[in-house]
């Protein structure tokens, strides 16, 4: 866009996901529209205050404005909103929501919130997420992986660290053990409430390597402000190395 760079000036966060640029540009565009409207209205207001104050205009006009100025402004605003909705918001939102990825190349992770930390549950080598149950939860098995389920054997969980591969599609199933939390990895330009009793997917593709904060977006108790986690995007090869280094929850000798 011609007006690139404005984002830094208004404090826009770094973008590190595929759809993030879309969010960023739309955000920028809407702010330009808002800026133009506000400056237009303000200019009108200032002119009117100077032109029609008691000194400058001792006698008020009963009819006030006689042109159809207001109608034009209102219709203009409606047209702009229709364009924003039909031209941008609907198609972009459809692109964001209809394309939930599927297939073998998609990395599936569960994010489990609790007061006041996140566990990230990876499927392990078999790529299948194992069963979890509240009765299996203990200090070593915070997410409650069920030993009877073979899919769970090679699963593992990280604490407060979401490690992601660069350029691979990722689905994160977000849930919570106790109260509502919110998973907000800022530069990925998406967030999702973690609601107990439900698993809600969010998906994205990371486009930049680096390490960023994950914010808890919903008030979850006294420790809410300190519920800090990080998202770490690694090149695919490094990610595979990392994956291989992790200890499964139920290694073969424990099965």
């Amino acid at each position, binding site marked *: 866009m011609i007006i690139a760079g404005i*984002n830094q000036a*208004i*404090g*826009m*966060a770094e973008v590190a996901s595929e759809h993030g640029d879309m*969010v960023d540009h*739309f*955000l920028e565009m*809407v702010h330009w529209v*808002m800026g133009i409207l*506000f400056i237009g*209205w*303000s200019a009108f*207001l200032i002119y*009117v*205050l100077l032109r*029609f*104050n*008691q000194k400058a*205009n001792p*006698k*008020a*006009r*009963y*009819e*006030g404005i006689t042109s159809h100025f207001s109608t034009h402004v*209102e219709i203009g*605003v*409606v047209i702009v*909103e229709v364009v924003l*909705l039909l031209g941008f*918001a609907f198609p972009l*939102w*459809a692109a*964001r*929501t209809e394309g939930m990825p599927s297939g073998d190349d998609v990395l599936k992770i569960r994010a489990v919130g*609790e007061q006041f930390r996140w566990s990230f549950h990876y499927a392990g080598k078999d790529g299948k997420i194992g069963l979890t149950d*509240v009765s299996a939860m203990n200090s070593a098995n915070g997410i409650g992986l069920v030993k009877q389920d073979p899919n769970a054997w090679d699963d593992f969980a990280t604490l407060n660290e979401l490690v992601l591969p660069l350029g691979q599609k990722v689905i994160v199933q977000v849930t919570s*053990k*106790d109260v*509502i939390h919110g998973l907000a990895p*800022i530069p990925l330009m998406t*967030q999702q*409430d973690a609601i*107990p*009793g*439900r698993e*809600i997917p969010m998906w994205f593709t990371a486009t930049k390597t680096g390490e*960023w*904060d994950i*914010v*808890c*977006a*919903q*008030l979850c*108790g006294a420790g*809410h*402000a*300190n519920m*800090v986690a990080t998202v770490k995007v690694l090149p695919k090869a490094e990610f595979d190395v990392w994956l291989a280094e992790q200890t499964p929850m139920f290694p073969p000798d424990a099965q």
Partner: protein
Amino acid sequence: MSASTTTHDKSETGGDHHDHHNPPFWKKYLFSTDHKMIGLQYGFTALLFLAFGFFLMMVMRWSIAYPERPIPLLSELPWFQIWLDDEGKVTGELYNMFGAMHGTIMVFLGIVPLAFGAFGNYVTPLQVGAPDMAFPRLNMASYWCYFVGGVLMLISFFLPSGAAKVGWTSYSPLASMTDSNYSNIFWTGQTQWLLGMVFLITSSLLGAVNVLVTIINLRAPGLTWMRLPFFVWAMLVTGFLLLLAFPPLEVAAIMQLMDRVAGTSFYLPTDVLNNGVLMDAAGGGNPLLYQHLFWFLAHPEVYVLILPAFAIVSEIIPNNTRKPLFGYKTMVYSVMVLGFLSFIVWAHHMYMTGVGASVSTFFQTTTVLISVPSVILLTSMLISLWGGSIRFTVPMLFATAFIPMFGIGGLTGLPLAFNLIDLHLHDTYYVIGHFHYVVAPGTIFALFAGIYYWYPKQTGRMMNTFLGHLHFWPSLILMNGIFLPMFIQGMAGFHRRAFDGGKAYEQISSQVFLDGDSLVAKIFHGGEAIQMLDLNIIMSTSAWLLAISQIPFIINFFFSIRFGKKVDSDNPWDATTLEWATPTPPPHGNFAVEPVVYRGPYEYSVPGAESDFSPQNEPDAAGDTAEKEETV
């Protein structure tokens, strides 16, 4: 307030059967059924609560700006130290408590009672030419329900658990399980909050019924629908919003109360943990049910906060421009459309709860749609200034500032409406900035305008203009000092409700806002880069200065009762609407003679008329009267 009716005591005219004797003190000032006294009771109580809510916010802003420093003054109080950590710093728990109560108090105990309870009560019957509200005793009950609700909220601060601390939205399951470690769950902050809410909701319902019936049934002869001042229209719509939106919240609150005290599971899903232990609950409930019920109220509630502000501003603008309100009929239809649409936008608060793509699409559409009537209302007010002869009285200053300030609040709602952008902005400081622009420099400015405007009606004296300016200008600047940086922080990803102002998220908070070699950084920051986190200090300082800049208002408010300039007539602003046709202050029963209405509400500078205002109740010289014209 002065009870003297010496200048215009019309009690012996016999037009009013209430006024034959002087009621005892308690009946006159405490258990009054007079809508004006109830309005004043509402006003005083609400102003005190606003001040208290402001105080809570100042404590929070200390914690946000200086999380590593002990809180001044409060850390000296021995009884307060249980809420602070060993070094006297604000804890997350205290911050959450003050945050929840700041929201609750400002919305339910401050602005709604001041806007709808005080102005709605005081002005509406006067403007429709009624002797009182339709149901005076119900009106009294409404105030006392509000009072009890307020007392319960205040008491909860002194319970062992402290007051509610799960946000003004009180989301389950956190709200269902909070304070469950206290032996008596009934005497905990959250339970008392719910009980308090039941009283407050009941109060609003009683008030709403009263205002609706008064407007519909008690209008003076000749006061047809399209001759109603816009104020009355806005109050009518506000009344409908309260009447239809509050019952779901009452239900929601009672269900949450049952979850807390009676072991039900309306909002508790199966296998939910409480403090790491499996909760003893049947489960099967749904946390989202609460959110739907809550926001079904709370979005119309936003318009309950803003419509009275529109109402007040639309009275003050024609009066001070000396010309009719532009597009009166369009505004009336817009406010009705606005009221209707406000019931179908609630789920835009829930985009992050997984409501589904098509549901989100529906709600983003309705949310964008609702901006159309809002734009029409604001544009009409703006264009009303054109061709006027504007006198910048203190109420007019506040009313004029309302337009661009509310404009910012409204415009910043636009990006939040879009699902895609909301993925980034949801629950950030951008949202805080947005709704505070709507209610703080928006609604509160309008309420101040209303106080300055109607003050002489009750007291017979004007408020001081110099002190008014001393109140207005710093307030205008400081309001922006508090809320404008919030948009920038929100963009950067600062989320709300963090007691340390986002410091724990080091990467986000250390993002550079202004480079070290920029002029501002050189002057104010010793050539060091200004980071996002540093904006907290600007905002907090503005907030504390804003408190100081309210002092002229407080002085003005009390001193003018005794020492203000006396009004030279019952209609000091040369206004047209009926409240100025009453004696000053209006006696019990309001009007000396039952008013008859001959024309529309804003007939200023009518061509050919003798003066630049033609009151609604003055017959035309030419003799063509109301009956001829229309009988809508």
